[in-house]
């Protein structure tokens, strides 16, 4: 059970864009498609042309619609009306990134984060912009800041940080970061699978297999993981063990009730496992002939 003092701290660290969205004037039960909502806000702007919140609101609608140019124009107007509001740089930075301008995004977000270093939304957006600019080290640092600020970070942040660290060949740090996420969030399958992918990519097959074994132990259905074990062992050139793993996967499939075994997913897994086993058998036979 989470403690609510931690949640209150999280609320304080919450991306300010959420608060701003909450504070924006909302028509009762606003609905209809985006175009209609843009028309409604435009009418409001005509009545209140100096209200920066309305430009932000319309800019967000343009952004949701993929109209980056109009979104940026509205955010710029909001900035002119309220130049002291650093938050607007977050809106501009985010739309810059989505419009394919990561350098502009980083400049704007640097400016905001100089004033508000704990702005989670800005850190995440800057991390993603930096990753696009191949500034992976800096991106990883931003993700680390985000993870430290949040009591319950989304698994995505651990994976994105790991990707950035792998890109700069900080493999141990990438894996340590994923393990940190597993420790904190629990045995989240997406973190575990990415860690296995990293280990296999580095030819650290025993480490990958150890991780896979933990997943297999917990799984209700083992056939897929046993087949994965076979694949990793085959990549490692440990053919006899790979054959045993594939055979074990096929045995699990054989033991499934008919309605499970006959599903296409299992049929395809069975076919691919048999094919993999056959390939290994051929390789083994060829070696024997030599």
């Amino acid at each position: 059970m989470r403690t609510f003092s931690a949640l209150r701290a999280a609320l304080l660290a919450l991306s300010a864009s959420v608060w701003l969205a909450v504070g924006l004037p909302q028509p009762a039960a606003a609905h209809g498609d985006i175009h209609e909502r843009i028309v409604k806000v435009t009418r409001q702007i005509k009545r209140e042309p100096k209200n920066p919140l309305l430009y932000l609101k319309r800019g967000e609608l343009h952004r949701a619609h993929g109209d980056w140019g109009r979104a940026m124009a509205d955010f710029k107007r909001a900035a002119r009306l309220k130049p002291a509001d650093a938050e607007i740089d977050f809106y501009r930075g985010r739309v810059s990134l989505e419009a394919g301008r990561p350098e502009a995004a980083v400049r704007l977000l640097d400016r905001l984060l100089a004033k508000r270093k704990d702005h989670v939304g800005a850190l995440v957006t800057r991390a993603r912009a930096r990753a696009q600019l191949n500034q992976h080290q800096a991106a990883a640092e931003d993700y680390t800041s985000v993870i430290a600020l949040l009591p319950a970070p989304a698994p995505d942040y651990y994976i994105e940080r790991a990707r950035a660290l792998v890109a700069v060949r900080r493999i141990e740090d990438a894996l340590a970061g994923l393990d940190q996420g597993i420790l904190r969030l629990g045995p989240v399958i997406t973190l575990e699978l990415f860690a296995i992918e990293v280990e296999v990519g580095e030819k650290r097959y025993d480490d990958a297999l150890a991780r896979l074994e933990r997943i297999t132990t917990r799984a209700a259905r083992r056939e897929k993981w046993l087949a994965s074990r076979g694949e990793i062992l085959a990549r490692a050139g440990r053919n006899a063990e790979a054959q045993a793993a594939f055979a074990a996967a096929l045995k699990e499939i054989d033991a499934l009730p008919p309605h499970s075994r006959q599903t296409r997913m299992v049929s395809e897994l069975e076919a691919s496992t048999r094919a993999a086993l056959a390939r290994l058998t051929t390789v083994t036979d060829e070696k024997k002939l030599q």
Partner: protein
Amino acid sequence: MSAVFVLLVASFAAQAQTVARGPYLQTGTPTSTVVRWRTNTATNSRVRYGTSVGSLVSFADDSAVTTEHAVTLSGLNPNTTYFYSVGTTAATLAGGDANHFFVTAPPPGTPKPTRVWILGDSGTADDNARAVRDAYFNFTGARHTDLWLMLGDNAYNDGTDSEYQAAVFDMYPTMLRKSVLWPTLGNHDGRSAASQTQSGVYYNIFTLPRLGEAGGVASGTEAYYSFTYGNIHFICLDSFDTDRSAEGAMMSWLREDLANNTALWTIAFWHHPPYTKGSHDSDTETELIEMRQNALPILEAGGVDLVLAGHSHSYERSFLIDGHYGLSSTFSAANKKDGGDGRETGTGAYAKPTFGPGPREGAVYAVAGSSGQISSGALDHPAMFISLDRLGSMVLDVNNERLDAKFLDNTGVTRDSFTVLKGTTPTDPVRVALSRDASRNLVATINIRNTLSSPVPNVAVTFVRASTLDGTAFVDGVPVPQSLGTVNPGQTRTVAVTFPGTSGVPSGFSGLVRVDLSYTGGTFSDTQQVVTP
């Protein structure tokens, strides 16, 4: 005097403790339930519980002094009714009566007749929502609701705490305290909450599984999760505030969750519908397009049976369809696994051959976003069998291989219904499903379908017998009606048969039901294995 003053203050403080919200039930599993409530002043927490209302012999405590209480009861027995009360270690503040109870989920994989109530965009906190609620309460009567779903936009306009109080806690107090609520985040809820940080009102209010606690694979986040109830696997996705990309964490998790799924039924739900032409258009809106393009291929390969969403304030229900991920203009007959109405009294139930997750056998997609308001729209998506601009909610009744769905409007009229059958092919002429009547006697609903290409005249049910697997014990039933007249090609007729004196047959008992038919030119007999509810 000062001691008297202290006593008076303490007494006043004790009297001032009241339950301001709830109690309400979260993350129910076969062996555990989370009981939550809010008090007006900070206290410690105690839930007292037991299997009879006058004897709450067990208790679970949390010593933290708080106004937001969340106590997990664990070590429970599956499929068991527990009565409970909430309060402090010193006092009971609510419950301890016949109105405060819950029923734990059945063991995974166990078939149990299950009723699910589904609300979408219900957060208007007004007479519309009340009418929809009351229509369902009148419909279900004394029949317990096993679980219920909210499809997002649970509290208008911004999902604030006070809006949740009005739209959820003050609107459904009786349901909240006896049936576990499983919600998803809508765009309006998202105005006061953030999935990437799992903070804000929605995440404060709900306790949802992150680590596969209720079945399914650990997601690490409450934004998307799964749970299993008996032989039904439910998957909740976050279509609003989580990365919807095909290679993102949510879709990666979804693939693994489905690969791990062994349940007979798979039902997915989230807020933004992949197909709609209501107050939103799934051809033009990003969230809807991305869910259709990225989530549906995974779900359909994983054998999903039913996908529920809200967002459009209407009711729209598809044919049994598969493989359509583009614009509505590209939807074709090739995407229809069954282009009929899905009604046994019409063109026939939707039949899926595999008794379990069957990839690419078709799914029904329903938009049920009219539980608080209606907002019109073109309502002409070609994937839909029916589209209605009516207030209402959905009801699912799942009984082993059979799923019956209804759209119940705000006046209590059933405006749509459909049935999905698993483990059958369209050529199976006779299907039997068991239920119980008010006296707990077994009732067989027998569906007789003409799978030939010509009408079959003078169809009559001549003999129905329920027996043990070895036939040593049996009871004959009387079908009503006996004579079905002519059954046309593709048409299904339904016969109800009561087996008297069977109230003592326990649940989960395997037996046989034999059905003999006569018709002009011949007879037909079929025996099917069934499990008693």
